């Protein structure tokens, strides 16, 4: 809201309605306060208003952390804008804090002069103590930098529901709707979307629906009647490309992408998986897609999950395993089996903070080198990364396409940030999706298990049940063409070269790198994976400040696009921001002997646009350009 504002001619009644380009709202409360749902509703409503948006949930690792504690705070941040945005925002303009712990955890992020809505009913001694406050922050002047709107949300919720025959606990549960009503008023959003959703969701429990609707309206009315805000804000619709949209989280997009790949290839989808944060939703979602012929197997461990997928691949399925970093480590031996047997397999790694158990619910991009090298022997495989929630859909299709075409396991990297974050997804036409049809070998004439396609070097996919093609594969080195076990030194060299060459040849299919900005110059910001939004936002801002900066993003980490070396050479400086300690930078230096500038962050949180911007300014010697 710090961006330029145009004042509406609304002299009639206070408060005035101010148009702003964008706002960032964070809903924070106890795990049981329904903050994820509240944020999701604000998101849906804003989507239907026509805003561009991006969301970022933040929830504790503990399932039921003690009530009122810092560990139990659950938050949902959403950024809405009247233009094309790429991240859920750096700092909130408006914070809703349902208790002292939520306030304590988020207040440091709130912008100066930002709007702070607090449920004062929860600011009693016990809760203050649990949050570690010695004085009540609502009374000690420590919030003077913000526009505080105190509201007895619990009390007013109960008052609104006096007439309804519900117990106190049930009434408490609709408190979040009061807060949502207040925020809807502040940003002049229509209530209809949420009312419709509530009526549908609680169709079988009309009393609950009624209570929530009542409280939602009460929140709005409270603000309107008591003039809570001096200014209200409005974000106009963004000029989104024409089309049909839905809001999508990365794990959902990835799951739907896998089903799409299955349909477009004509191969049944088989997922072998073991629950692990933040990848479990892929298992949940695909398990629900039975009418699409999807088989999901919740295995006894990570190794069984990938091994089962390999078995399914041998049988002719589009085989997938989904996991996060620690699980990928467990799967490494089996992934090598897929490399050796040259079977198609998609390994989805939704990265999280490491090492070891690390930060399960927090994001990081620190498995790149594990994906590249975390296996015994010379074992290259394609590695591709999704760059945004919606991009997970396309990346899943691409990973499947490459796996099947080249008969190779592919690692798809996502991370907790885009897996749980959401953005509007412009829905594709089904007929525009890539055609992944593939043919199994059926002709016994001249069949050899490792006879290769001249172009792709892929071996034939000959599935059990095909008469005359009985053959054996396995983890021992195979003689090229015949597939017989071979310990021959020259053959091992040949097969090692072939396995590498097969992956390298994929580069011929990678489209040229899209550079945003001049194709040469002083500074290129190059990223991969989920940093795309922050890089785009930060670079665009730098350009608005008159700085000469270009940016580009890599989907393929292995093989690198064939024009990458040239691109790096055309810039004086290359900045590589990544949420690890410099893994892509290491790969680029090794491969191209270019001393890229590594920008790293491992704080469990995505980059802010402002951080990228600051680094760009610094490199271009433009600290004073503001």
């Amino acid at each position, binding site marked *: 809201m710090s961006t330029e504002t145009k004042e509406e001619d609304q002299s009639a009644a206070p408060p005035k309605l101010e148009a702003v380009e964008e706002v960032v709202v964070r809903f924070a409360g106890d795990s049981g306060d329904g903050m994820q749902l509240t944020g999701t509703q604000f998101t849906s409503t804003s989507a239907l208003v026509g805003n561009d948006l991006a969301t970022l949930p933040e929830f504790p690792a503990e399932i039921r952390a003690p009530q009122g504690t810092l560990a139990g705070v659950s938050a949902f941040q959403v950024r809405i804008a009247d233009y094309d945005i790429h991240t859920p925002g750096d700092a909130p303009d408006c914070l809703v804090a349902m208790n002292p712990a939520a306030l304590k955890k988020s207040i440091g992020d709130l912008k100066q002069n930002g709007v702070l809505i607090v449920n004062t009913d929860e600011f009693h001694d016990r809760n203050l103590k649990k949050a570690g406050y010695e004085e009540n922050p609502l009374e000690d002047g420590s919030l003077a930098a913000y526009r505080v709107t105190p509201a007895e949300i619990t009390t007013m919720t109960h008052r609104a529901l006096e007439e309804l025959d519900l117990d106190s606990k049930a009434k408490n549960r609709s408190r979040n709707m009061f807060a949502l009503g207040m925020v809807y008023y502040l940003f002049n959003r229509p209530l209809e979307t949420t009312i419709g959703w509530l009526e549908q969701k609680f169709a079988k429990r009309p009393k609950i629906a009624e209570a929530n609707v009542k409280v939602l309206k009460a929140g709005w009315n409270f603000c309107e009647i008591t003039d809570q805000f001096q200014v209200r804000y409005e974000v106009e619709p963004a000029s989104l490309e024409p089309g*049909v949209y*839905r809001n999508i989280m990365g794990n959902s997009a990835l799951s739907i992408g896998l089903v799409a790949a299955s*349909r477009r290839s004509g191969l049944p989808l088989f997922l072998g998986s073991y629950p692990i944060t933040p990848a479990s939703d892929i298992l949940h979602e695909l398990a629900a897609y039975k*009418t699409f012929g999807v088989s999901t197997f919740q295995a006894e461990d990570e190794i069984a*999950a990938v091994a089962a997928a390999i078995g399914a*691949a041998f049988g002719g399925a589009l085989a997938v395993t989904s996991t996060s970093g620690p699980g990928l480590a467990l799967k490494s031996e089996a992934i090598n089996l897929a490399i050796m*047997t040259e079977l198609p397999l998609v390994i989805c790694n939704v990265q999280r903070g490491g090492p070891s158990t690390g930060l399960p619910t927090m994001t990081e991009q620190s498995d790149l080198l594990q994906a590249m090298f975390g296996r015994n022997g010379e074992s290259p495989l394609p590695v591709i990364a999704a760059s945004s929630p919606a991009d997970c859909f396309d990346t899943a299709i691409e990973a499947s396409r490459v796996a099947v075409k080249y008969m190779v396991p592919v690692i798809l990297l996502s991370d907790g940030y885009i897996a749980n974050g959401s953005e509007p997804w412009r829905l594709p036409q089904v007929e525009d999706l890539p055609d992944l049809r593939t043919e199994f070998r059926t002709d016994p004439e001249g069949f050899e298990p490792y006879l290769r396609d001249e172009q792709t070097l892929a071996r034939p996919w000959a599935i059990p049940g095909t008469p005359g093609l009985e053959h054996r594969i396995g*983890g021992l080195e195979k003689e090229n063409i015949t597939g017989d076990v071979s310990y021959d030194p020259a053959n091992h060299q040949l097969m090692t070269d072939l396995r590498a060459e097969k992956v390298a040849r994929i580069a011929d299919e990678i489209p040229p790198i899209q550079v945003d900005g001049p194709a040469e110059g002083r500074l290129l910001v190059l990223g991969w994976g989920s940093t795309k939004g922050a890089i785009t936002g930060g670079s665009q801002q730098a350009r608005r400040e008159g700085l000469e900066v270009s940016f580009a993003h890599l989907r393929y980490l292995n093989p690198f696009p064939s024009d990458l070396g040239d691109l790096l050479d055309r810039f004086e400086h290359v900045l590589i921001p990544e949420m690890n300690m410099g893994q892509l930078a290491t790969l680029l230096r090794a491969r191209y002997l270019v001393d890229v500038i590594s920008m790293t962050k491992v704080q469990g949180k995505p980059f802010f646009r402002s951080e990228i911007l600051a680094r760009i300014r610094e490199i271009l010697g433009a600290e004073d350009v503001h």
Partner: protein
Amino acid sequence: MSTELPVLTKKDFQSDQEVRWCPGCGDYAILSCVQTVFPKLGIPKEKFVVVSGIGCSSRFPYYMETYGFHGIHGRAPAIATGLKASRPDLEVWIATGDGDAMSIGGNHLIHTLRRNMDVKILMFNNRIYGLTKGQYSPTSELGKVTKSTPVGSVDYPFNPLSLALGAGATFVARGVDIMQPHLRDILERAHAHTGSAFIEVYQNCNIFNDKAFEHMVAKQVRSEQTVEVLHGEPLVFGKEKDKGIRLNGTALEVIRFADGFGPDDCLVWDEADPNPALAFMMAQLGPPDFPTPIGVMRNVALPSYDHGLVHQIEEQIKEKGAGTLEELIYSGELWSVDQSGQVVRGRA
């Protein structure tokens, strides 16, 4: 085209690969037995898949002229599970050993059994690690002196049958490499069973653990030292069929017919007993006080995992109709932006 199956013979299942087990290894007999049984099962050759892990026994698939997958150490049940779950039309067999199945792959073994995956597990038990050249295995007897236990092992062995029964296996049997007709019968019955079949095969490793089972299965002692478990038959053994096993209170005991007992006093074996308690007790028997039971200890009918998986998919499609990609992508809360930038709810 004729729909009749071609007549298959043992030769059809012999691959062109040179068999490279040590001369005199018990594995040869097991291979021969499987190659004899497969052609008799009435299944087209291309439907067979033999999956293995790592170890001497796991070279098995290379010698079978079927589809085969030589996997990684311990993971054969998991590979076979994915294959069978996605391709229930296939006849999937696993060749594994005591180290592969019960040590590095123990987790996969028990979960495959508890799920009742329709795969047949042939576990070659030689009570030693052969391929890594002679370390003790999880079935080696206490005090086993090997390269890795020069003054004797101090850990207690698994009883494979007990482990399988404890995991809820629906078909549990024990055979012996040198008892071919008996083993063939078990293999045929394993095939006929729906769901997991666990078959422990006593297999002699003549290099690292020679004569491990000699005191039980050598021809001259076999009738005294083993008891053949037969469904519906009393547990009688001995060269002269003059001994038996009865249930006395909560314990099994050997009775001698010379002492006035007869076959009617012996426990009549019920392999289909849903309660595995007696099978577990039987599995515990062995020297020095008891004969070693061989044959099918348990054979109960339960739907298999792969059946359940396919059934759920079929039922969901029957109930809700087959999903289309179009409806999957265009689901949830949609909004449309038209050419003029107007936003409307739903799909315009």
